[in-house]
């Protein structure tokens, strides 16, 4: 049976320069794959290659068994791929409510207002006037309400207060339990190891660690992140 997301020998980067080489991974339904590595090792590049924002130089991406390597990002989205980018993740000149209304969303944003009450309070506020952490939460909830089968999140916890990071973890666990495949790229190792089933460590664009999460401690992961 095919996995929700299959990445096979992925190679790619920016223009003529590849920064990711021969990376393979498989995420089944209900699983969370945690990706870690120092800055510059290719985590964001991997997310963008899978999402379609960058073109592959080699390898393949399969979504629920279907090859999507040549599809545009919006076509991958239509096939059930959700993506939360690291930066430029909300529309600054739209209100919080308008940001949450964009696109075809399977869930109502109100479902998340208990966890993130600040969004409910600030529905009429322009997203650009919110703090960095609040914008991250807005982008996170935006991604959640799409109810995608495969979720890719690039550093969602950056700038977010610890209580809200725990709530993000709660949401991601719930999505995985509901059958989604989740790919989480994070520098916050505590957050990552608290929800990941499998870990993929990258260095210089290549996989250097592939392990079931329970078999490697947060300290061991941190030890791999030497500057």
């Amino acid at each position: 049976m095919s996995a929700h997301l299959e990445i096979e020998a992925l190679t790619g980067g920016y223009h003529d320069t590849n920064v990711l080489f021969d990376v393979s991974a498989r995420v089944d339904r209900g699983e969370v794959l945690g990706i870690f590595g120092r800055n510059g090792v290719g985590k964001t590049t991997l997310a963008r290659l899978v999402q379609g924002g960058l073109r592959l130089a080699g390898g393949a991406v399969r979504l629920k068994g279907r090859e999507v390597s040549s599809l545009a990002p919006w076509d991958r989205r239509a096939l059930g791929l959700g993506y939360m980018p690291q930066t430029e993740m909300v529309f600054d000149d739209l209100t919080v409510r308008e940001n949450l209304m964009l696109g075809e969303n399977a869930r109502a944003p109100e479902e998340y207002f208990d966890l993130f009450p600040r969004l409910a309070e600030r529905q009429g506020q322009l997203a650009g006037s919110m703090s960095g952490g609040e914008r991250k939460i807005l982008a996170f909830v935006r991604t959640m309400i799409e109810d995608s089968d495969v979720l890719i999140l690039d550093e969602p916890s950056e700038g977010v207060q610890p209580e809200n990071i725990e709530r993000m973890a709660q949401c991601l666990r719930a999505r995985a339990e509901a059958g989604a495949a989740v790919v989480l790229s994070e520098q916050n190792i505590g957050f990552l190891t608290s929800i990941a089933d499998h870990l993929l460590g990258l260095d210089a664009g290549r996989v250097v660690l592939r392990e079931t999460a329970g078999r490697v401690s947060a300290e061991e992961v941190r030890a791999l992140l030497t500057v």
Partner: protein
Amino acid sequence: MASVLIPVSLLLGALLLVPQALGEFTAYQLGLYLIYGIAAQGIGFLWGKTGILPLGQALFFGVAAYATGMALRDGGGLVLHLGLAAVVLAAIALAAFGLAALIFRGRADSGPYFSLITLALVMIAEQVAGTTTSLTGGFNGFSGYDSLAGLDPFGGFYYVIVAATAAVTLLLLTLNRLPANLIARAVLDNEPRLQLLGYPTHAIKGLAFTVSALLAALAGGLFASHQGIVTPDATGFALSAQLVILTAVGGRFHVLGPLVGAVAIGWASDSLRDSFPYWELLLACLFILVVLKAPGGLAELVERGWRRIIPARPAVLPPATEAPAPRAPQDPGALAFEDVRLQIGVVRILNGVTFETPAAGIVSVIGPNGAGKTSALNTITGTLRTTGGAIRLGTQRIDNRPPHKALASGIGRKLQVPSVFFSMSVAENLTIAMMAGRARWSDVLCRSPFGWRSGGLTRVLEHAAVPLAAELSRPAGTLPQGHRQFLEFAMTAAAEPPVLLLDEPCAGLSPEETALMTDLVRAYQAATGALVIMIEHDMSIVEAISDRVLVLHQGQVLAFDSYAAVSADPAVQAVYAGGTK
């Protein structure tokens, strides 16, 4: 210097051969193309570097053309004419600078309005030129004057145009090698960052527009003498649009591009005009093609091919020298918020924030998302205007001043999302930062700032674990997020501000990189005795680094004390647990 002199010498040599090689009539035609080319070089200078598109350059072209015609008709010698030219050019420079500074002051996003205003002005000018018959000759044109110094437009005047073309090209190529070029490009790249480094961007745009206006005026003066008649078309929108097209097709990012565009399109138009009735349609299609497929124009295509044969060599930079001392006061005193309020629309972001920091040390700011932490820093730099209360740094009141004045008060700022000049190399980013708060206006016209080093920058760059020294030639836009954090910190530290505002400098960093950033912040504070105010969520960092901790909640101060006191405060515990990576 060879990079400047070789192309200018080649250009000069080729142009000087034209009368003998191709005849006087061809030289006469080429002279007109070069005149338009000079005006287009001015547009390229403004548009290519700062991104501002002027749609009314014929205003300056036409005014100078009429003024030249009138001066030549009224007689007098060359000295008088040059004197009058200086007066006209000074008036045009003043008008251009005043117009641009007025439009851009206070608003970084006025570019489209500026273009439309210049369009409106040139339409007014054309109307005025056409209706003030007693002064301009109306639609019949202004004529009946001799050419400058009596030179024949079909003979000696061609060499005046060639000399002007060579001089303008030399000037622009020289400017390209100077820090002034970096600063002009930085306006297009990241204007808010440039402002926080203390650069008055409205004045920089004003100066760039002034240069472009003066080149249009020079071209207009040459045009009047070359053509022997000035009509309202010389101040018109059609000419303005044509100059923009010449610039775009030739290449607005290259000094020679607009000249190439002017000559190529001028020659093609003159050749096709009689044989192909739809030549203007062809020109329009060419413009659309260039905009869509080759935004850098013909010059970029040529350069790309040239670089395949001869790769670009890295510029030779002057040796590293100690940078001049920062101009900001080095001991400005404590930072005090007095009942500061901030409201955007109906949302109250700061609700009477009051605290006073020590004059030195590290103050961490913590609080839930949306507590007002980043907004509080934004009010210190003037990025957000307060709606009540006062902010003082020592004895100076600093609230509601423009962001570019923050550094002069001694305040440096690193933003939450790393903000650097993305299209520039790491080294260029650092040069701009190195000049911040130190360079005088004359310094931007010397190459010595390329070698400037401050203790603040050296401490970061020479730290073995900081990943920047090996990436100096890499475009900042290709750096991963974490490396951008270090670059922006290095840029902020380079200016050595006595008050350093850091907004989550460890966001997106691994635990080890976080430890490195923390070390750099501590080292900066220890070396400079600065006041560092740092927003942070990771409580292990807050505990390790802070002399005092400011807790904000719902736009108010919940606590301001030592880490031990704040972490034991039940009110703080109730709203903010904190955590570690």
